[in-house]
């Protein structure tokens, strides 16, 4: 083959992904005088962060002065069923308020309290009203603020560029990556002293998901292929409230803010069923009557929390059980009712996008009728194992922040903890990268053979005139994962998934793509599929090993948590190489928590 020619760029810090974490990392590294490049699969400002609705958790104490980082830390650890990297949960709780205030200095306009401070709203699993927000479009505010800051700094942003693979130097340090421009299909290499993965999530492997086409787990997969470790991959969050009808929008997110603002869940008999699903762990702090629960919204000292605001894993399982018991809605969900509980004016002001979304897409006026909702694949707690303080992986020069990182949320993420995660750890990754460069031992050349191999592999589908349609494989993968690796799992189905994933792996090797390289979605999908399959295998493998139920991982054959398994993360890694290389798994013990933090968890409330 003749030597390919392609564009080449060089940076101190290359960031893959332009959502909240990537942009925050870019700002930090840029402010430290480093040459920063950002690569994104989409246009700038379109990342999945815009989909975040309810808010950004930070113990600022603006609404409840008794709130503080210690309570936020405790809530996060309890929500995560103690599988969290405690140090990440600690840093997150301590630093989130400063990250919110900093956004305000960059132009964000949050909703206000009567005395002019940033207003905070209630969400599941948070003891106090803690989410800074802008109506129900907080993610848009976050991304626009960071985007405008990055643009004002003159940072280079490479849009609609798909990264295929990370590239090392001869010593095994990260040296950059190879990708292609979607517009032309031409290849490009980025050489960098450090690479920060900020690629977000992976929900696109499931049929019903709140994630956009971008959520294909690229960063998770590329990290695995490059020698980093993935932890807690079995822990996938199914958000309790996704739209269920019309079918074409099934899975589309309905913000938890609906419940935070007074919305309740009812089954087809009209019962407020969540009272029947309060787990022992949350019983002491959850109301046991509708009357008590309803007092709480206005005054958190007048009653205990409504059960609708339990952590997401609890609520999703309850909805699943109601539907299974035959008490579901006509389209296989349950009802989320705010219409009978709040005024039309209140609903339109607090939840404008939800009002709009249901009106336009389902023809439902949520100020008059209940919404039909059900669980939707939303978030992956699992991710790349990193050092909490620096976000560095075990591969020198490789960092990860945001949803692609693992550990912060343990087995289940609390709503509102994701936006704050992005900015807390995006910033830390920027600092981590700067310090790594300062230490002076970084890569200065890329392994050319690895670049060539990635390019050849990407072009293979064009060489076949007959073969698999990538859309068929994607469709079959999503159906299969939905059925076999969904919200409730068992050994038998997970074995089926394992076999099927091996079949999909073979099918991907026989993809034939029609058309040319310029903006060809069929080809783009073909290059996303290796990551989607690697990701799905990692989730399935983790789910087989974790023979217990914990947070976002529920086994019907092991319905209870197992204390011993609660002490370990399962860490998956390859010896490097190809996307279908064998994966090793080891049990990696959790960090040992200092006594003063342990005391916070045990404290009575």
């Amino acid at each position, binding site marked *: 083959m003749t030597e390919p020619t392609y564009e080449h760029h060089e940076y101190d810090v290359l960031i893959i992904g332009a959502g909240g974490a990537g942009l925050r990392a870019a700002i930090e590294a840029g402010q430290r005088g480093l040459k920063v490049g950002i690569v994104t699969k989409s*246009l700038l400002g379109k990342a999945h962060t815009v989909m975040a609705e309810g808010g950004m958790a930070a113990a600022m104490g603006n609404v409840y002065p008794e709130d503080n980082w210690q309570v936020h830390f405790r809530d996060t650890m309890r929500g995560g069923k103690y599988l969290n990297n405690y140090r990440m949960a600690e840093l997150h709780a301590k630093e989130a308020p400063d990250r919110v*205030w900093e956004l305000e*200095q960059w132009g964000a306009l949050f909703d206000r309290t009567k005395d*002019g401070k940033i207003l905070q709203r209630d969400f599941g699993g948070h003891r106090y009203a803690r989410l800074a927000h802008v109506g129900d479009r907080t993610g848009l505010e976050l991304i626009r603020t960071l985007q*405008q800051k990055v*643009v004002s700094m003159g940072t280079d942003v490479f*849009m609609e560029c798909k990264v295929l693979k990370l590239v090392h130097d001869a010593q095994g340090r990260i040296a950059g990556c190879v990708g292609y421009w979607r517009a032309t299909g031409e290849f490009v290499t980025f050489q960098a002293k450090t690479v920060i993965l900020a690629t977000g999530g992976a929900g696109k492997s499931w049929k019903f998901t709140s994630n956009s086409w971008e959520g294909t787990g690229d960063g998770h997969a590329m990290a695995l292929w490059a020698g980093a470790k993935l932890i807690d991959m079995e822990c996938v969050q199914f958000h309790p409230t996704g739209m269920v*009808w019309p079918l074409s929008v099934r899975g589309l997110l309905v913000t938890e803010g609906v419940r935070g603002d007074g919305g309740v869940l009812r089954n087809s008999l009209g019962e407020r069923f969540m009272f029947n699903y309060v787990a022992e762990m949350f019983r002491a702090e959850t109301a046991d009557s509708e009357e008590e629960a309803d007092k709480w919204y206005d005054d958190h000292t007048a009653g205990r929390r409504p059960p609708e605001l339990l952590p997401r894993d609890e609520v999703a399982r309850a909805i699943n059980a109601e539907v299974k018991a035959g008490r579901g809605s006509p389209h296989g969900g349950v009802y989320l009712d705010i219409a009978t509980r709040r005024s039309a004016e209140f609903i339109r002001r607090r939840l404008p996008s939800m009002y709009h979304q249901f009106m336009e897409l389902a023809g439902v006026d949520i100020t008059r009728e209940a919404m039909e909702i059900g669980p939707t694949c939303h978030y992956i707690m699992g991710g790349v194992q990193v050092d909490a303080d620096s976000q560095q992986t075990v591969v020198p020069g490789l960092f990860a922040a945001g949803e692609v990182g693992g550990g912060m949320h343990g087995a289940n993420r609390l709503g509102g903890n994701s936006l704050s995660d992005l900015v807390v750890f995006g910033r830390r990754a920027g600092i981590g990268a700067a310090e790594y460069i300062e230490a002076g031992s970084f890569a200065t050349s890329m392994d050319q053979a690895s670049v060539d191999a990635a390019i050849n592999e990407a072009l293979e589908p064009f060489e076949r005139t007959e073969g698999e349609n990538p859309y068929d494989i994607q469709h079959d993968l999503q159906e299969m994962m939905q059925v076999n690796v969904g919200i409730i799992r068992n050994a038998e189905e997970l074995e089926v998934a394992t076999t099927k994933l091996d079949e999909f792996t073979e099918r991907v090797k026989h993809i034939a793509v029609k058309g040319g390289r310029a903006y060809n979605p069929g080809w783009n999908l073909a290059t996303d599929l290796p990551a989607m399959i690697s990701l799905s295998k990692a989730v399935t493998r983790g789910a087989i090993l974790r023979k217990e139920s914990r947070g976002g991982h529920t086994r019907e054959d092991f319905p209870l948590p197992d204390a011993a398994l609660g002490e370990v993360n399962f860490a998956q890694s390859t010896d490097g190489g190809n996307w279908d290389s064998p994966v090793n798994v080891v049990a990696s013990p959790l960090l040992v928590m200092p006594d003063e933090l342990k005391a916070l968890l045990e404290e009575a409330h």
Partner: protein
Amino acid sequence: MAEVTLRVWRGDSSGGDFENYTLEQNEGEVVLDVIHRIQATEAPDLACRWNCKAGKCGSCSVEINGKPRLMCMTRMDTLPEGPVTVTPMKTFPIIRDLVTDVSFNYVQAAKVPALMPPPMPVGGYRMFQEDVERGQEFRKCIECFMCQDVCHVIRDHEDNKQHYAGPRFFIRYAELEMHPLDQNDRRDLIREDMGLGYCNITKCCTEVCPEHIKITDNAIIPLKERVVDAHYDPVAWLGRKIRRKTKTSALDAAVQPAP
């Protein structure tokens, strides 16, 4: 079984033509669903841009039956009977099929002088809901660029793009000018380099905004008053001094330390 027909423009910068796709009709579908079904079957290389499929990211802007629309928010059953025509946005250069080169907008974004706030007091700035609400309306913008697409100043006159920011950026400037914390002054820039004067208030932008932002009434007209008055009218200049004072008062209040 009822059917739907999409008439989709296919081609690139060298030219192209319409192609018809007829599929069975599914309940509740939006235009983007039908495009996706075409991609999954007949035309895997049909280029379109999309992300969230929920009306929140503004990626899937095209022209449906000649009008700028988001494909993800346009239900098939709301369109008139007969074939549905889907074309790329006219104002921007074609990349391929329904995908256009919207880099004009990113060039304009880079020209906007950033917010210039005073140092933040301990405990954060104080701002009041009525003061942030004006800016919040403009920050609902999802950057679908359909207001830019429909604006005849650049839709019909390519050369105007050199010196015209367009409605999306007029709301951005308005937002910054009305921001309670801002200490920057962009009025000369807006008048001289951003071409605010070219807008003759036909409100086409407001009509296509999927976020229902009152672009003309709430951003462009107040911005015009502010900019033009500042330059030509001594009485308004005095008025501006007073209004400026109002802005300064809000600013003073914002940096009062928390009690």
